[in-house]
């Protein structure tokens, strides 16, 4: 069966440009999560969706970051006016349910490099 997929797998951009990262969760998973992993660090939670709603956006690092989800499926994470400190691996995960009862299944990530 298909797992979580993300695109692009790698993205190199210039400082100040906007980027869009895409996540396709496992079919039927209602919860979707975005994380970021900087070099040598653990995963840092950014935002989660229950269906198409994101109840809490406080994990997003700045107002340059936004995310949406449509059709209770695909999600897009947008970073506007990218900065060098945005360079990281951006990971998407999905789970059948939200909360602590569902293990999260991760995609392979998008490696973003901001020059």
């Amino acid at each position, binding site marked *: 069966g298909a797992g979580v997929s993300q695109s692009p797998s790698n993205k190199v951009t210039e400082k100040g440009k906007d980027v869009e990262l895409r996540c396709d969760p496992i079919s039927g998973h209602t*919860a979707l999560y975005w994380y970021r992993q900087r070099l040598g660090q*653990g995963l840092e*939670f950014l935002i989660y969706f229950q269906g198409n709603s994101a109840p809490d956006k406080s994990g997003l690092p700045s107002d340059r970051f936004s995310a949406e989800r449509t059709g209770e499926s695909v999600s897009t994470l947008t970073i506007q006016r990218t900065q060098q400190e945005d360079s990281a691996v951006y*990971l998407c995960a999905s789970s059948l349910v939200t909360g*602590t009862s569902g293990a999260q299944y*991760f995609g392979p990530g998008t490696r973003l490099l901001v020059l």
Partner: protein
Amino acid sequence: DQQVKQNSPSLSVQEGRISILNCDYTNSMFDYFLWYKKYPAEGPTFLISISSIKDKNEDGRFTVFLNKSAKHLSLHIVPSQPGDSAVYFCAASRTGSQGNLIFGKGTKLSVKP
């Protein structure tokens, strides 16, 4: 301030022996803990989890132990195999949260043939 800590960045073990990966946490509200394995250029893969109502959970070669009073958990892999070589992340969450996981920085396990 890190709420989930993996104090050993790396661990090397001989094939066939036991690997013990440790994790400490500071938030007593955490009530669900997970271990993930990550190979290079891949996303983390769920391994095993444990609820705070238990002190042990076993799945094949993998066993997770939870000591709530010490705010400590460990993952035991026995017998270790070369294919187990990867980075292992400990993660925690709490009821009432969004289910978002708080991760440690990971421990790189190398299993030598």
